């Protein structure tokens, strides 16, 4: 797997020695006087479903765009598989990292199959010719996301939940090791929210992927994620397993309102109960 890693030192050591994704002291500001991320540090281990939480404006989306390589951090570093993110050539990075951005309605006229095939771009040649392997990967991705029946339909015809699955399929078609998702369940109903997270968990458990998800839905993340990273004003407030992070004394100051944490008796996982105002 040629990834073009330029740092030969880290390439020799066993991968398990490193956290798969290591973020160290990352800072970022769109404008000089308004930093969005401040000395941010956390790890994501291989083969885990990690979820980033935090109130609006905590910098979650910005962080994700840095992790995809769309933005360069102002300070600090990000390492993927031991090598600096900046050292990866763009196409090589696209072959390792799949990105599912926030839902944007783009009517381009592509069918579902064509959309998923777009995910093969990092693998197809300069002129974009396809080989049977590309079609196999695309069909696999459609199968995994349960969207095979839509293959010939135009993307614009699908519902929000179906469209989201197709975008995930597109990311899967890249055959990535790491999948980054930005608010994948933001506009979906309850059933589809759980379908998506169920899919993510299956990708981790059965597909061997590493998934890092940004979400504002605390309970959904609590129910499915292996690790949680709680952000507050561009900084990591807490990171670890759900029961370690979801505690009233941690959550209340971050969300600036009284929050109770209960335990779900069936799953054993915590869930939060914000106290209504008045």
């Amino acid at each position, binding site marked *: 797997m040629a990834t073009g890693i330029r740092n030969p030192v880290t390439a020799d050591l066993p991968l398990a020695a490193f956290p798969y994704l290591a973020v160290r002291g990352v800072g970022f500001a769109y404008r000089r006087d308004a930093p969005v991320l401040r000395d941010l540090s956390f790890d994501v281990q291989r083969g885990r479903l990690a979820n980033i939480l935090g109130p609006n404006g905590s910098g979650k989306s910005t962080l994700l765009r840095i992790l995809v390589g769309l933005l360069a951090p102002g300070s600090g570093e990000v390492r993927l598989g031991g090598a600096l993110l900046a050292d990866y050539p763009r196409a090589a*990075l696209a072959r390792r990292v799949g990105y599912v*951005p926030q839902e944007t309605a783009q*009517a*381009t*006229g*592509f069918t579902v199959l064509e959309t998923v095939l777009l995910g093969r771009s*990092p693998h197809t040649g*300069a002129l*974009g010719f396809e080989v049977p392997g590309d*079609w196999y990967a695309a069909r696999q991705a459609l199968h995994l996301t349960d969207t095979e029946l839509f293959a010939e339909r135009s993307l614009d015809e699908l519902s929000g939940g179906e469209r989201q699955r197709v975008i995930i399929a597109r990311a899967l078609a890249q055959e990535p090791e790491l999948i980054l998702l930005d608010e994948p369940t933001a506009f979906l109903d309850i059933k589809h929210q759980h379908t998506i997270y169920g899919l993510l968990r299956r990708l981790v458990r059965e597909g061997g992927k590493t998934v890092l998800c940004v979400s504002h839905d605390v309970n959904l993340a609590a129910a499915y994620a292996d690790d949680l990273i709680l952000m507050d004003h561009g900084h990591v407030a807490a990171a670890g397993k759900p029961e370690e992070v979801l505690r009233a004394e941690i959550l209340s100051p971050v969300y600036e309102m009284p929050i109770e944490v209960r335990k779900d008796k069936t799953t054993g996982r915590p869930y939060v109960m914000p106290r209504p105002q008045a």
Partner: protein
Amino acid sequence: MNPRPLTLRSYLQSIGAWAGLWACVCLVAVLFGGERLWTMPSREQVMDILASRLYAVLVASVVGAALSLAGLAFQALLRNPLADPFVLGVSGGAALGVILSGVFVTVIGAPLFGFVGALVTIGVIYAVAQRRGRIEPYTLLLTGIVVNAFYAAAIMLVNSLVSPVRRADIAYWMMGAISTLNPDWSLVAMVGGLTIAAGIGFAFLAKGFNLVAVGEDTAGALGVRVERLRLVTFVAAGLVTGASVALAGPIGFVGLICPHILRMAMGPDHRRLVPASFFFGATFLVLADLATRLLEGVGGQTPPVGVLTAMAGVPFFIYLLRVRWRRASEIR
């Protein structure tokens, strides 16, 4: 549109089919487009007429391909289905260069001045629209509109200052000047080379066009260097537009309509659209130019080709819109 993989073989096959169509149309245009060759008394006359037609067919092919490609590229670059090669004002720069040169400096070297005008305009637009070295579609479009307005005013100023004879010259040239008494084969070869280079270049950018149409972030995440793509597309499409206008005047409609016709027939995949635009644009303009020669018999004089592209393009486009195409696509 049945889904078939885009393999090297299918790519070459479709290019072959398009090229074959274009070649047939050219052959018909050269052999049958105008005076009846077999009634000519002398062999020299036949050779001269063939040469004149061959030149017209070559110019029409090169300009048609160039404008069609540029239109496709600008539509992708600006995320705007109404974009055509002239929307950014590069054609205005080329036209003004040719007109100023033709009126005040030199007639023989006028196309060169046109090309210089295009180059200057590309530089100016980039300088005005860029922000920290990056160009956004929205600012590019606004800058282009303003630049276009400037050139329209400048050409009107020149028009008001020159004699009525010159004014008529300019007006006629602005409607497209493919047929000419004075063929410049080396100029056609140069513009042709530039157009082919642009076609090849855009073929390599086609994947990027597809991805950018879906979203800037998605494209970046899938390995596209969006900024570089924008800059290269802008410069290449601008150059090829400027060269076309310097060669044959501003011929409207081709760059707007050909990509749309193809999109309705073939779908939004730029990998297929780029080679198709190249050959379809060439074929389209060859047919339009052929029509001007055929209509000469009817009206007594040759109508300008720019008039025909508009009048032929509109009904054809309406026809396609009405007939149900499964893939009427929109770029937003």
